[in-house]
């Protein structure tokens, strides 16, 4: 029982990342009808926003400290981050410590901006081209974004720690009355799951309960009619693209402490997220979220030693295997709608 609970928990954080990326992919696909292969790159850029922001916070200048001596007997030179000058030492250190959560504020405008530029500058011209062209051009864009990041940040993963407050692990077992230290789970992963849940909830609430969301949903159902009613649907869809980019970026920012950002993390997640979208059903938002969590949990179950003993290597292929089975038995995916991508 506790082993099962542990695997479910383990699957949640990866599942959250899959769900967030798949949600963004589905938003773009549902609104603009574009298959965005560059979405993984947006996730990666999000993670690098966290890196950049924490670097920016620790910009420092050198101050000569007369009270201390270095090993040569000269006055010691100390690097002082500018943030200490601004907010004082204690607050400054706290801000640096909380760099990753704070960089959310930095990421949202950056990602929305990137989303706007991408949509207006490139994707817009591909609405009426075949899906193959859309896949290919966004695939090219993904390569370019990835290489640009590699050029500026290098090829090695950059460790980006979570705030010290979340460094430990949470003893789930003790709380639920199992043996202590049996089911422990890092705090940050819990935070990530909660964060993902909030974002997913916010996107759904935005689409469901605001006038803007209502118009967008109407546009997803029948773009032409909404246009005939005198609503500038293109503008709203551009905004939705920005939001989808921001969702991917936020998924990346918060993922940075779990997995040190490197330039190809986007591609690694992209392939899996596409599988998630297809399993969930192309164009279905709840399907994408459901499939994201399901596949994440399934993957962590497949990595259990007991399972691996039984079927070696299953953890590597379980997601693809499930995708193949689903596509052959339920061609529209778990919650796919009729008439979406049927050609």
């Amino acid at each position, binding site marked *: 029982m506790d082993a099962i609970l542990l695997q479910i928990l383990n699957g949640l954080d990866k599942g959250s990342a899959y769900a967030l990326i798949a949600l963004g992919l589905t938003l773009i696909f549902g609104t603009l009808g574009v298959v965005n292969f560059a979405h993984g790159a947006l996730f990666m850029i999000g993670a690098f926003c966290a890196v950049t922001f924490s670097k920016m916070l620790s910009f420092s200048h050198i101050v000569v400290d007369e009270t201390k001596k270095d090993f040569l007997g000269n006055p010691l030179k100390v690097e002082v981050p500018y943030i200490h000058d601004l907010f004082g030492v204690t607050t400054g250190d706290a801000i640096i410590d909380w760099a990753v959560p704070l960089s959310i504020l930095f990421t949202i405008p950056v990602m929305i901006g990137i989303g706007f530029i991408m949509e207006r500058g490139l994707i817009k011209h591909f609405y009426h081209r075949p899906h193959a062209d859309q896949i290919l*051009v966004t695939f090219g864009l993904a390569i370019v974004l990835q290489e640009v990041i590699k050029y500026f940040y290098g090829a090695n993963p950059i460790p980006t720690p979570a705030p010290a407050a979340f460094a430990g692990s949470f003893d789930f077992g003790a709380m639920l009355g199992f043996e202590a230290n049996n089911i422990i789970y890092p705090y940050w992963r819990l935070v990530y799951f909660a964060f993902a849940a909030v974002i997913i909830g916010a996107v759904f609430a935005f689409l469901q309960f605001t006038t803007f969301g209502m118009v967008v949903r109407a546009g997803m159902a029948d773009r032409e009619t909404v246009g005939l009613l005198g609503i500038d649907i293109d503008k709203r869809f551009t905004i939705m693209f920005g939001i989808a980019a921001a969702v991917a970026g936020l998924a990346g920012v918060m993922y940075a402490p779990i997995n040190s950002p490197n330039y190809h993390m986007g591609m690694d997640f992209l392939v899996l997220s596409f599988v998630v979208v297809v399993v969930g059903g192309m164009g279905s938002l709840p399907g994408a979220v459901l499939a994201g969590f399901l596949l994440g949990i399934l993957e962590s179950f497949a990595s259990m030693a007991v399972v691996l003993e039984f079927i070696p*290597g299953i953890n590597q292929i379980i997601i693809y295997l499930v995708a*193949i089975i689903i596509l052959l038995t339920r*061609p529209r995916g778990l919650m796919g709608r009729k008439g979406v991508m049927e050609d």
Partner: protein
Amino acid sequence: MFGLNKKDGGLLLIVAFLALAAPFILNPFPEGSAMAQFNAGYPDLMQRLVIFGIFAIGFNILFGLTGYLSFGHAAFLGVGSYAAIWMMKLLTMNVIPAIVVSIAIAGLFSLLVGWISLRRSGIYFSILTLAFAQMSYALAYSVLTPITGGETGLQPKYNDPRILDAALEPGQSPRANLFGLDMKASSELEIGNWIFTFNTGYYIAAIVMLLSFYLSIRIFRSPFGMMLRAVKSNQQRMNYTGLNTRPYTLAAFVISGMYAGLAGGLLVAMDTQVGAERMFWTASGEVVLMTILGGAGTLIGPVLGAGFIKYMENIVSKINKSVLEQWFAFMPDGIEDIMITLIYPFVGKGWHLTLGLLFMLVVIFLPGGLVEGGQRIGKAFSRKKASDDTTDATKTPAE
């Protein structure tokens, strides 16, 4: 000629000339000159040019004719390579059984994958093939290590069984050959400052490439190829006329899988080693790139695209900072520095950035690839001349 019409025969002759004279064409700069690093006439690169040409020709039969975009073709190349290396380990270092078996095994594997994937079309098909390729890659790296060698890959060893070959003498290493003809054997021809290298392996690969090119022309011009094109333009209508398109698309898929297997087998024949990384999905993306860049659905496009990308990859990767400094040495210092900073990200290690940009530009502005570009230029010239509008045979797309 060989049952081809005049235009296609001419095309085949041009490709044959290009392939056979490649050691001269790719080596235009004399040894020791500053431009010598742009020479591509060394065996390793020339072999890869034609082998990836074969891979792209095969991919084009599927993508160019039927419009099914497969993102998993590298898996067939990888499977073919593994089959070939096992033949070399178990049977003989002769390349014939290795290549035949690699084609057969890749064909069987693509039959399985195609049988499942072709139940869906469009983006679903792409994702399914991608899933299969990633699965094979993951398995080759982990569980199948006894067969694939995992991260180390496979090479023929001194003490492999090789039941058809005579035992190797001590100190002798197993070398791929064709009835005693060593694949690595080269002869050099010196004319003035130029050194031209003629490599046995390259010429064998080039002849195989010509054969596969000829076969692809025949497929393009056959009723079968016609049917595949009909699938691309309107599959629904085909179904309504009471025709089952599945056997045709499946046949195209298997044929292109066998081409990939052939390419994989040849890669092993030239350089006897295999690693799982050649099955990674970026490798599948690369063959898509070659086909698109050259011109999908045209006969000569994939060959051009494969040659162009592999050539650029080798040459651009070689340019480093000192080469750039040498180039811009004639400029004033300030401008020289600016030029170098501007160009440096795109060369050397930045090759993938150039590739990505090139790819985007081609898809955006020139969806027909290099062939369409050539056509447009040709048209612009012929309009100026206002002479008879005979279109260049090499530049006519198959559709």
